[in-house]
């Protein structure tokens, strides 16, 4: 069995306050609350986030506490949401727009890619876009093809954007605070399948909650987890597994079920990537599996595979493997046939070990 690495010990500072149990929704809500309190320039906007508190409840109570000009509903216009956030950033605010589902982000792409991501560069740093775009992503909730997508590779391909994906309540809060304080535009994708519990990939077994887990013990105050730093989830020699979001938990449960001692790295930030942690791990284990839920072709796994091959080739004892979603839209009824679950991951692990 691989060894789980103790969490939550490194970055919480003395003002992080009392620790309490939170699921990922509560941790995100807490991060937003802390930042709205600390920084009068932090402003939240998005569809249904105000009075109602968001369709996933991530902003519940924040409008009442911080006021309507700090936390407000918007028209159904992702282009408008991102566009006004660019203008708010130019004024000096620190906007945190929510896109209700990552699947809805495409009307805002021009404002993200051509404007927010390029503003610092094209103005030689006279203007910046210090926004954090929060958006739930990923499947496993029977959302069909328009509420399940994982479009992270679109954003990692854009120069000037940072892409961050948490895998636990503790990380979600610390990473989100780092994103909000970051002076560059950041995409913060929230794996909605694990909002309420760490999904292990066995959809036909009872759902688990975050209760009792170390990584759901979250300080109530301010703390940060630095961007660009991966987290070692388990230690092991059999292989390195690179994953993020929901798939961290799925990969871990498959390794446990199969008795494979893998070193699982939760990447946490895709851009900038923690290449040092990846190289150090792969050079030690000599084998590498990459797991993501997004479609395969030109997915972020392709980038990871290329980097590992370019930089660790002479340490590799087996071809790098990718486990991903299929190159189809996310189907509704066949969701679990699409999802890169235990069978697909298990097969890849066997293949790597047999090589």
């Amino acid at each position, binding site marked *: 069995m691989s060894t789980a690495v103790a969490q939550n010990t490194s970055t919480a500072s003395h003002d992080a306050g009392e620790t309490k149990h939170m699921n990922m929704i509560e941790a995100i809500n807490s991060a937003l609350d802390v930042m709205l309190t600390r920084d009068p320039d932090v402003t939240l906007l998005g569809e249904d986030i105000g009075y109602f508190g968001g369709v996933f409840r991530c902003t519940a109570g924040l409008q009442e506490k911080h006021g309507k000009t700090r936390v407000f509903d918007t028209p159904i216009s992702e282009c*408008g949401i991102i*566009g*006004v956030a660019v*203008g708010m950033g130019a004024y*000096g*605010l620190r906007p945190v727009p929510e896109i209700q589902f990552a699947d809805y982000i495409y009307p805002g792409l*021009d404002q993200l890619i051509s404007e927010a991501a390029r503003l*610092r560069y094209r103005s030689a740093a006279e203007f910046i876009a210090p926004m954090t775009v929060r958006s739930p992503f990923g499947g496993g909730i029977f959302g069909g093809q328009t509420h399940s997508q994982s479009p992270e590779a679109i954003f990692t391909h854009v120069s000037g954007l940072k892409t961050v994906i948490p895998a636990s309540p503790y990380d979600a809060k610390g990473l989100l605070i780092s994103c909000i304080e970051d002076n*560059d535009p950041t995409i913060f994708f929230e794996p909605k399948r694990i909002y309420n519990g760490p999904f292990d990939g066995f959809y036909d077994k009872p759902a688990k909650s975050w209760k009792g887990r170390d990584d759901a013990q979250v300080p109530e105050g301010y703390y940060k987890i630095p961007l660009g730093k991966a987290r070692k989830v388990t230690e092991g020699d059999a292989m390195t597994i690179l994953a993020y979001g929901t798939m961290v938990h799925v990969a871990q449960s498959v390794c446990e079920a199969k008795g494979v001692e893998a070193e699982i790295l939760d990447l946490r930030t895709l*851009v900038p990537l923690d290449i040092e942690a990846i190289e150090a791990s792969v050079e030690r284990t000599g084998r590498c599996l990459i797991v993501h839920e997004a479609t395969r072709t030109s997915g972020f796994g392709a980038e990871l595979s290329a980097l590992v091959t370019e930089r660790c080739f002479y340490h590799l004892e087996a071809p790098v493997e990718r486990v991903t979603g299929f190159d189809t839209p996310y189907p509704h009824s066949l969701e679990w046939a699409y999802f890169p679950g235990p069978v697909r991951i298990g097969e890849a692990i066997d293949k790597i070990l047999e090589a």
Partner: protein
Amino acid sequence: MASAKDETGRNRPPLELHVPEPHYRPGDAVDFSHLDITRPGAQPRPDEVCEAKETYPLCDDLIRVLGDDNQAHGPWDPRLGADSLRTMLREMALVRAFDNRMYRAQRQGKTSFYMKCRGEEATSVCATHALAADDMIFPSYRQQGCLIARGYEPIEMINQIYSNKADKLKGRQLPIMYCSKRLSFFSISGNLATQLPQATGFAMASASKGDSRIAATWVGEGSTAEGDFHSAMTFATVYNAPVIFNVINNQWAISSFSGFAGGERATFAARAIGYGIAGLRVDGNDPLAVYAAERWAADRARSNGGPTLIEHFTYRAEGHSTSDDPSAYRSADEQAEWPLGDPVNRLKNHLIALGEWDDERQEAQDAELDTMVKQAQKDAEKNGILGHGLHHPFHTMFEDVFEELPWHLEEQAEQAIRERRIKFPEGRPGS
């Protein structure tokens, strides 16, 4: 061919697809008598904080102040003093002198690209004068007049146009895509209409902070077709944002006439009606009317009256840019026949009619401005012209992508510098 009979065999009339066609193509004689050119002074001027709907008749009208008698008429006369009028005249003339010289510089191979604004000078220069100095301008690409009206140095503009070593934007932007935070002039984007939601967001931020600054943005009539226009209008009306939308209807979007943005069906000002915001349609070649309309909208925004959409009805007297030849798609007679005249001449003639100016002073000023621009050009050329080595250091290519340089860009920067050493082992003088 699709059948014109339905499943029960009934005849149905064939549908027709309407593809707009401009009135005049190359070689056509031009007659603009179909345009409804209104009488100067005849348009009512509602109070700045009126209900938006009081402005709706003005969306189908045309606010004009300067008459053929070169006098100012009616309630929209902004009653500016002669010094203010001479300042605007001088700045419009400077824009024209600057445009002429930079156009030639592009033709001489000193840069890759240029865009003139001949005929549209009033829509930027005079509108800017109606704003406070710290109101935020979100320009499109033909608003050099805004920068000049705020006192930007021609040499700074030319350094940018040449992408040389003194270019404040480090040679990263296409020529004329200026930016000056000091002068509250936002960075110009090549992606059209993106500035409209941004201006709205700036205005919303200013309002949420209880500030007094407003935002003003410019867009061509062609790019009102972008979704950003609709998003911006919707957000502006929802939050009653203190923002002014200047739609410069210069009739042409490269080779596509305004009909391809819906101009055959309704005025661009009339779009304000659907959003419930104030709308004005103004003679964009009338410097006094432009000033008055912009000032009305600025006063309205500043008193929490909300956004205004202003259509500046004007004519693009030259090509879209140095990259197109307008004689290939429109009649060469259009510019001469344009019934609203030339903004520089109209303001000049008004000042002369007031006894505050004369042709000799105009000629002397034109000569002085040309000399000034020529000198700025010479000074800028000491910093280099495009493609002659006097650019920013290679490493700057990788800076400002992020606030801090991540490892992958550091590696790529090392590669770029290595490639250069391989290509120029002895080093390259002046770079």
